[in-house]
């Protein structure tokens, strides 16, 4: 019985680790791979994307956000903090409403991890390879299709 008690205690203590520290670590790792420190692509044609990322990061329930824009379309992907995921539908509604009110572009907002990865990869491509707007648009269409997929 004592052995079990010790085992439970160890797991409890392990799960009590402060979250902030972990987040800092992951952010540090991100900084190594990322070119810019905020989640938006830094180009003159990406100003609205930058603004959208700022807007989302100001929310306390959003962990991270990336955004890319091209030809009247704004693709925003964000990640919701773990315990706030219980209110996912409400957050999704709020974010969608706020973005639609702020920007006149067609907003494609998603909290999906895959969309987040894809958008981040696209953003990095825009920063490093200087691809044309047409190519960005093509990639955004692919990501949009993926985000609309149903089971």
């Amino acid at each position: 019985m004592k052995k079990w008690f010790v085992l439970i205690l160890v797991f409890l203590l392990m799960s009590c680790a402060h979250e902030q520290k972990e987040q800092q670590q992951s952010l540090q790792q991100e900084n190594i791979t990322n070119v810019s420190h905020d989640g938006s692509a830094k180009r003159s044609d990406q100003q609205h994307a930058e603004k959208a990322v700022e807007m989302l990061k100001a929310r306390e329930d959003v962990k991270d956000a990336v955004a890319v824009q091209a030809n009247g379309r704004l693709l925003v992907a964000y990640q919701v903090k773990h315990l706030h995921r219980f209110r996912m539908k409400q957050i999704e509604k709020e974010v969608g409403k706020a973005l639609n009110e702020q920007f006149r572009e067609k907003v494609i907002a998603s909290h999906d991890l895959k969309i987040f990865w894809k958008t981040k990869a696209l953003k990095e491509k825009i920063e490093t390879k200087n691809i044309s707007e047409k190519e960005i648009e093509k990639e955004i269409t692919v990501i949009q299709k993926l985000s609309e997929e149903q089971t």
Partner: protein
Amino acid sequence: MANEKRKHLTPVQQEYHQFEQARETKRPVLKNCVRAFFVGGFICAIGQAISYFYMYFFDFTEKTVGNPTVATMVFIAMLLTGFGVYDRLAQFAGAGSAVPVTGFGNAVISAAIEHRTEGFVLGVGGNMFKLAGSVILFGTFSAFVVALIKTIAIKWGGLG
């Protein structure tokens, strides 16, 4: 046994009841719960890893990744049942290995293996869903009832 029921027992029966209670081995409920919790959690962690694998290397989103993950987990559980590993795990973890979807795979394959000697059609085919069939039936039927309630609530109750 409830006290009300015990009143109707004869003195001999009551005596036997006390005799039995004194000698009965206690079920280690807490220990079983802890085992089920950790093994069940471990199986779910493997499932999460598989879903991340599918999302990272293939074009699955969080919404669509459920199907291939469940299929893979059931497949792994079937292989482990065939090799006799899952039975040992189930002995140790109890509900921890039966409640996740892997328990479903185990239920199908163990019944199939058991009736293999009776032939492929009447043996394997006829008995494969002996255990898992009820799970499928209850799942489908309860989904139907919930969908019915939801439809009625939305159409007439003004919800949604």
